[in-house]
């Protein structure tokens, strides 16, 4: 087990730079999730940590040791791939044993270790099967087993769940998290699914276009997004962003409503966006912000999502599931002041 550090990591393909200075410290045993839209550089970063991709500049340290010039096998890492990368021509056991090929462990110990891992992953009965005789979830577990068997300092996962159906994904998510609590190795997990990130991570790294947007616990990135990108990316449905002007401590929206926002950093007069999550925005709140006409309802059972046409555009709010407003009804939406976010339009950065 070991900590991991990335220092001003960049990566260029030819003359195009795709990663622009990634710096990050990961503590020993931490579960860190990289999340971001397609093409933002998550896989590239992970592959550089693994040693499958050269670093253009910057330093990678694993366990305090610079590994830039080490081969993948010398870095004490293991990686689980999106397509499992388990070999169809080998049995489950051989596949798991593959992770130990280059170790000089005596044979009986290897055997014991394989059994142990199969036990943890609950697949002792499957050891003699071929991958073609396994379900998707079981194949993924074999891939995890092959990574685990060496007890590496750092586990790297590149979207390991995206080939599974929704139900299995939820189940594997839980299993990986339990596994982490049990074995305690450092994990770097890449996904483009913010729910996966929120549910599994100790800390989330949100990336966009080769830049880190924010690093924080799930709580931090959800409740204090650093900018509009993070605000919209985390949480579903996405945060509503309403255009307005900041003047001192209050924001004036397009429709003329004035909203007071507590704890603003850097006042002055400027264009801003007022952010409020649909979960926090309700009809008939004590602190009304905006009025509009309901255009669509989406019942979710306990609650109903309502789409409301307002002077600031269409926004989404959450209403009670039993007595939601009718389509066509005019509603007054409001939110508690501490759930309001203000972002600078020019930079996108949070001001609250």
């Amino acid at each position, binding site marked *: 087990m070991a900590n991991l550090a990335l220092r001003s990591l960049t990566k260029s393909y030819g003359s195009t730079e795709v990663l622009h200075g990634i710096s990050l410290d990961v503590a020993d045993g931490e579960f860190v999730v990289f999340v971001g839209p397609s093409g933002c550089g998550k896989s590239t970063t992970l592959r550089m940590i*693994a*040693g*499958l991709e050269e670093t253009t500049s910057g330093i990678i340290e694993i366990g305090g040791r610079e590994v830039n010039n080490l*081969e*993948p*096998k010398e870095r004490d*890492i*293991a*990686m689980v*791939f*999106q*397509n*499992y*990368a388990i*070999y*169809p*021509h080998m049995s489950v056991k051989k596949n798991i044993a*593959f*992770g130990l*090929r*280059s*170790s000089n462990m005596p044979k009986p110990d290897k055997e014991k270790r394989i059994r142990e891992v199969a036990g943890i992953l609950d697949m002792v009965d499957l050891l003699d099967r071929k991958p*073609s005789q396994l379900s998707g979830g079981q194949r993924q577990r074999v891939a995890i087993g*092959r990574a685990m068997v*060496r007890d590496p300092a750092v586990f790297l996962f590149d979207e390991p769940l995206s080939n599974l159906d929704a139900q299995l994904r939820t189940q594997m998510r839980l299993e990986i998290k339990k596994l982490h609590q049990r074995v305690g190795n450092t994990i770097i997990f890449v996904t483009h699914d913010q729910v996966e990130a929120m549910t599994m991570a100790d800390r989330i790294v949100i990336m966009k276009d080769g830049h880190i947007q924010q690093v924080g616990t799930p709580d931090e990135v959800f409740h204090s997004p650093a900018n509009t990108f993070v605000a919209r990316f985390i949480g579903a449905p996405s945060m509503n962003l309403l255009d307005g002007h900041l003047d001192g401590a209050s924001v004036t929206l397009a429709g003329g409503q004035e909203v007071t926002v507590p704890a603003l950093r850097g006042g002055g007069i400027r264009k801003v966006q007022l952010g409020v999550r649909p979960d926090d925005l309700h009809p008939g709140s004590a602190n009304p912000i905006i009025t509009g006409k309901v255009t669509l309802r989406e019942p979710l059972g306990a609650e109903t999502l309502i789409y409301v046409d307002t002077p600031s555009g269409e926004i989404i709010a959450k209403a009670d599931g039993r007595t939601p407003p009718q389509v066509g009804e005019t509603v007054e939406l409001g939110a508690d002041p501490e759930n309001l976010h203000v972002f600078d339009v020019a930079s996108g950065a949070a001001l609250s």
Partner: protein
Amino acid sequence: MTDIAPSADTLLIAKPAPRSRNLGQIIRWLLLFIGGVAMVMPIAYMISTSLKWPHEVYNVNLIPKEPTIENYTYVLEDGRFYWWFVNSIIIATITTICNLLFDSLVGYTLCKFRFPGRQIVFIAILSTLMIPTEMLVIPWYLMSQSFGWLDSYWGIMFPGLMTAFGTFLMKQFFESVPDDFIEAARIDGLNELQIWWTVAMPLVKPALAALAIFVFLGNWTAFLWPLIVTNSVDMYTIPVGLSGFGDEADVAWELIMTGAAISTIPTLIVFLIFQRFIIRGVVMAGLKG
């Protein structure tokens, strides 16, 4: 397996148009029958001729009037045929193994590694496909002469130890091996040669089997180059040796056909062995998807 679908739609469509369907069926069977006969006839005549006495050879009857196995005893007891058979086996086997190794090594490298000049190397290899053997035998001969390779196994084998076709075939098949497999093995600490051998090669077994059949048959039946490069009767391969059976005045067809019949046995064995891999490979690929 495949006739499940036609029979199912026979149930639905057969009633309105049974006549035209039957006619189509008959034509199809007829074509297949003609094709089958065309394939089988030469083999039937080969076997039939090998069982005839010399005076009956020029009769077209398929069943010999007085069948004999005299030709077989003659050919098998003739020391020359024995040596040609051994030569052919050695040459075809070594060439096949070399092709499997070298073609797949080069194909793998061209497919999975990015290096400067990769495209050029690939195109250079492919372009050799355009040059017919007939154009190459003279340079090969001159080369063999200068190196002293005439009339030796090496001389017969060297032009075919690696083929552009095989390299191309293997490169295309290695495309189907996911890069993830290779990278996973790299992380697990295998070196590149081990990855090629333990991960990539087993996954392209069907292609290797097909290549093995092609190369073996190609070398087993090769005539022009072995004829040119060999001088002594002991170095002949079967096709070269058989062509000279009999004396100047009279070609001994019954002996040639006997030798040919015997020499089909190894090719049948090779085909039966490797064909199984091809079928199994197809099944495996089907399960993967």
